[in-house]
């Protein structure tokens, strides 16, 4: 009930912003809704974007259960893309589609690797994870720009992208099921991983240790749990999940490595995790919402030229503000109105 009201407040304010640009907010909202789910192809795109958000949302949520803020999804996805692209380009021609699972593992390994260093620095040296993961985003961006522009660029080309991957290493497409869209097998994979994350957190011993480390590190330590190991595990698993964004984006849609492909998905994972209350199933719902917003926003900027695509970012910002930072704004009032104590 309360999240719904907060979300409504965010949408109403977004409508006011649209109004301020001189467009009709209701027309904008309807263009947004039609753009997101009007036909099979739009729905396919929505689910395709949602796939990225499920992965980056989980990448934030897992470390969050250990009390750690992972702001490095962007860089983790980028390095995941590097390793999976290398596997696709090196092994794709000889192994064919047998290289697909290897490339998926490489993407996860790249993301995990890029999260492992900040995790280790935190455990061994007490370095602030928020700062180190942000710095690792910048470092990944610099390294990848160097590699793509100077090393991996397709010969004789000026666009900063690699040669296309062999067709055999494409992630199997699910586009035809709904309509032409880049939706691919990564979507069910992401859903399965969300389920796996839930089982891990709820039922596994390691998952319990992660939650204990986050809830009360002192108590966890007293109970014989290695808090450092739990933190490092959760951050590394989160990095691996962020790395899989490369599978959806590169192996599923672009079929080449290109500059800046994570395009803010890693950052938006923070909003997704927040709205999903760090629960894997909540994250799937929030990812669907953000996926719809992304796809709908693209259509919206076609329909109403005076509204740019940035309006989607405004909506995301307002959603994070109302659902995260100001989540208690209406809570007390609603509780009073419903006639019980404002205890929640």
């Amino acid at each position, binding site marked *: 009930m309360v999240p719904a009201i907060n979300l409504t407040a965010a949408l109403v304010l977004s409508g006011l*912003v649209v109004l*301020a*640009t*001189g467009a009709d907010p209701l027309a904008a909202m309807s263009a947004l809704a039609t753009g997101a789910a009007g036909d099979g192809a739009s729905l396919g795109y929505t689910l395709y974007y949602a796939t990225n958000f499920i992965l980056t949302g989980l990448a934030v949520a897992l470390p969050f259960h250990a009390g750690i*803020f992972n702001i490095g999804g962007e860089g983790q996805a980028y390095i995941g893309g590097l390793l999976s692209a290398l596997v696709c380009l090196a092994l794709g021609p000889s192994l064919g589609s047998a290289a697909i699972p290897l490339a998926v593992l490489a993407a996860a390994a790249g993301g995990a690797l890029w999260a492992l260093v900040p995790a280790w*620095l935190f455990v*061994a*040296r*007490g*370095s*602030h994870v*928020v*700062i*180190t993961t*942000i*710095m*690792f985003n*910048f*470092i990944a961006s*610099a*390294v990848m*720009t*160097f590699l793509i*522009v*100077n090393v991996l660029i397709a010969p004789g080309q000026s666009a900063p992208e690699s040669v296309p991957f062999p067709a055999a290493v494409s992630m199997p497409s699910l586009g035809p099921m709904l309509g032409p869209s880049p939706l691919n097998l990564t979507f069910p994979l992401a859903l399965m991983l969300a389920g796996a994350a839930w089982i891990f957190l709820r039922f596994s011993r390691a998952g319990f240790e992660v939650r204990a480390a986050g809830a009360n590190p002192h108590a966890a330590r007293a109970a014989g749990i290695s808090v450092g190991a739990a933190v490092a595990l959760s951050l590394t698993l989160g990095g691996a999940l962020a790395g899989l964004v490369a599978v959806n984006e590169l192996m599923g849609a672009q079929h080449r490595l290109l500059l800046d492909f994570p395009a803010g998905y890693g*950052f938006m994972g*923070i*909003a997704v995790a*927040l709205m999903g209350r760090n629960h894997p199933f909540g994250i799937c719902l929030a990812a669907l919402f953000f996926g719809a917003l992304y796809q709908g926003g693209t259509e919206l900027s076609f329909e109403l030229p*005076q*509204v*740019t695509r*940035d*309006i*989607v*970012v*405004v*909506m*995301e*910002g*307002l959603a*994070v*503000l109302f659902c*995260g*930072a*100001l*989540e*208690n*704004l209406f809570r007390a009032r609603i509780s009073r109105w419903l006639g019980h104590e404002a205890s929640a």
Partner: protein
Amino acid sequence: MSDAGAELLSVLAAMLRLATPLVLAALGGLFCERSGIIDIGLEGKMLGSAFAAAAAAALTGSAWVGLVGGIGVATLLALLHAFAAVTQRGDQVITGMALNILVAGLAPVLATSWFHLDGMTPALPPTARFEALTLPGAAAFSGVPLLGPAYLRVISGHNGFVYGAILAVALVALVLHRTRFGLRLRAVGDHPQAIETAGISVAWLRYRALLMTGVLCGLAGAYLSIAAGAGFTRSMTAGRGYLALAALIFGRWRPLPTALACLLFAVADAAQTRLQGVALPLVGVVPVELVSAIPYALTVLLLAGFVGSSRAPRALGIPYARGR
């Protein structure tokens, strides 16, 4: 004057220019964090100010109106931050992220709608910007060996903001260590209960700290769009807010060390453009893309080496609830 000497002077001058927005934003963050509130939203406040300053300067043709507009918007964003973090006791990291995302979207949306340019404000004429000042005697003394050129090229010829930032370091240190407000600010970040017990409002103190943050971030943002640059472009702060936060943590939440950390980042940044295509002894030509990673790698190394054990304000990040 040898070539190498001239090169060194130009790197030093570029360092001062590049450090200015970092110093201003980091000092802004210092007020916020010393009061016990994490400020990951420096980026958003700066970007909001950069946009507002450029928009106001473009509409009125006055750099001063632009400056006031920039400071005003950054202060409003800081007040929103305070409302969420202090009054509503919301999560402080989330609040900061929300501000960053919101402004990153709102600025280009409004720019497009007001100026019909894709996410930018129009290029500002020199009259609507703050231009470089030539300090008295710069030309007269330029003949003096060593000191003359150094004065002309490094000390003189900057924007007023650059001198303002240097002044701000001293002023902030003074406020923090020599005034009643500064004493209370340091106390509220470490032990808000003590402040409450002394009969002082924790919330009002934190609101005032965030007002200071807003003003300083406003200066930092305005510098980018109406002094160093000539107009607003999409995400023109380019991570400087995060870098300022890193400098603040690296500088152990103290004004002078924080400013020195900013200078360190700035000199790496200034050297980067100079090193493009230059062959260095031993390593050869260093690719410029990799050089740009140096400040970030340095931050990680320094955090791991020296600041790992530094002490943040004790109550940092914990919302304060009265009477607990």
